[in-house]
Structure formats: structure tokens, C-alpha cells
């Protein structure tokens, strides 16, 4: 059982700004990601490889985060989002962003977690149910933003 708290708005915004630029903004988002549309689920596991935390992002936001990390044009990200996939040349970046996002759950927290994998999910295979969740909207200048959910399993 992992006792690490879920990230605050300030924590999420600071991390995203460090990774993607100082102009990134985060806001509280009541509905969170729409699980009836394609979305990306990142899983974070404990030392026993049990999933303890997830990060769920709308696909558009996921492609944007991966693209923004190395300034891949927004059009590439947007085309992939329309196709319902993570762009091939963005996937590596997105993996690294989500890897670093482990710090949303572990900074100044007792339990060690590591990033396990990311999956593109949809209405037929949606993100797993969570016990608790916080939801934020992320705005990345020049890219499509979207909603993000950080949850405990």
C-alpha cells in the first residue's frame, strides 16, 4: 500500500514548466480527461511491481507534451491525435516526460515508485478505476493542451 500523496496544482505546474517551458500553465479541472476518447495511461509501480499510481492524459495533451519536450512541430502532434495514436517520433519523448512525472508522486514522499509503462486507451479499454484523483488542465503555448488526472489505485 502506497501512502504517497497525490500532487498539488503547484507541483504539477512546476514540473511541467521545468520540462516544457516556463509558459506552461496548470489549472484545476473539474471533469478531468474524457475516458470515452483516446487517452494515455502511465502506470507507476512499487518495488513489488504493483501499480500504485496512474497518470491519465487526454491523447492531445500527451502528444503535445512529447512534442514540446524537443520542440517537434505542433502539427505532428495534432495529426497523431486526430489519428488516435501517439506519434512515432514523439513516443520516446512522451515516455521520458511520463518517467519524470514519477516525481509528482514521490517528491518528499516515503514510498519509492517507478514508471512502468504507458498505454493508449479508449472507451473499450479505459483507464483503470482510481480510489482518489486530482484533475488538472494543462496549457502548453503553441500546442493543444488538455486534462490530466493523477490517481491512486
Amino acid at each position, binding site marked *: 500500500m502506497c501512502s504517497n500523496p497525490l500532487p498539488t496544482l503547484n507541483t504539477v505546474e512546476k*514540473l511541467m514548466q*521545468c*520540462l516544457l517551458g516556463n509558459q506552461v500553465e496548470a489549472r484545476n479541472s473539474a471533469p478531468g480527461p474524457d475516458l470515452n476518447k483516446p487517452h494515455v495511461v502511465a502506470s507507476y509501480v512499487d518495488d513489488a511491481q504493483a501499480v500504485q499510481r496512474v497518470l491519465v492524459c487526454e491523447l492531445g495533451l500527451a502528444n503535445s507534451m512529447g512534442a514540446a*519536450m*524537443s520542440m517537434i512541430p505542433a502539427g505532428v502532434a495534432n495529426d497523431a491525435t486526430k489519428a488516435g495514436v501517439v506519434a512515432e517520433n514523439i513516443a*520516446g*519523448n512522451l*515516455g*521520458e516526460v511520463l*518517467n*519524470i512525472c*514519477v*516525481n509528482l508522486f*514521490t*517528491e518528499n514522499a516515503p514510498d*519509492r515508485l*517507478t*514508471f512502468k509503462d504507458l498505454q493508449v486507451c479508449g472507451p473499450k479499454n479505459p483507464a483503470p478505476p482510481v480510489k482518489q484523483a486530482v484533475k488538472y488542465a494543462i496549457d502548453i503555448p503553441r500546442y493543444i493542451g488538455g486534462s490530466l488526472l493523477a490517481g491512486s489505485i
Partner: protein
Amino acid sequence: MKVLVVDDSKAMRMIVIRTLKQSGIANLTTVEAGNGLEGLAMVAEHKPHAICCDWNMPEMKGIDFLKKLRADGNETLFGFVTSECSAEVKKEAEDSGAAFFIVKPFTPNAFEAALTPVLAH
């Protein structure tokens, strides 16, 4: 100063190199590797003054790269740039001979704060 940057993410290597440049290290040049095995080869070829290395990588993890270097008698200044932030990981890094430990995501100031003291020696 020649710095070897080791990370399996090319984008992250670019960010580390950019941040090294922003931190004001004099006469900086960089070389890159994608994992610890490649890192060993780059050390042998380029003899860097310092190494900035990720922790979790395929083929050979960063900690194993460091341990191999030290076992071979190589004392090149070595530090980690990693998403790992637990006390246990930091201790293992220190015990194995790492001189600095920078947690991702990082700022240029964090890089400078971590590197300046060790470079001064």
C-alpha cells in the same frame, strides 16, 4: 571541460547539454551515450573530465556503469541526472562514488549548484 552525457532518451540528452551550457561551465564540450555500455566505450575513446548519467537505462544501468568504472580504477568525476529521488538510491550512488545527484526535472540553477562545488575541487 569535456562532459559525457549518458541517457537513453536523446531528447533528455539535449536538455542536459543545453542546461550544462546555461550553467556557465567554461570551455564546455560534450559527448553522448545512450546507455552504460556505450558510456564505457565513450570514456575509453574521449576521456571526459566529467560524466552526467541517467540511472535507469537498457543494456547497462547508470549505477552499474559507475561501479564498472570504479572497479577498473577510473576515477572520472561522475554524477547522476535522474528521476529517481529516494534516499536509498542516493545512498547507493554516493557509496559507489558519485559526486553529485541531480533530480529530474531540473533547472540551470540546480545544475550549477550541484556541479560548482565538485568542479572547484
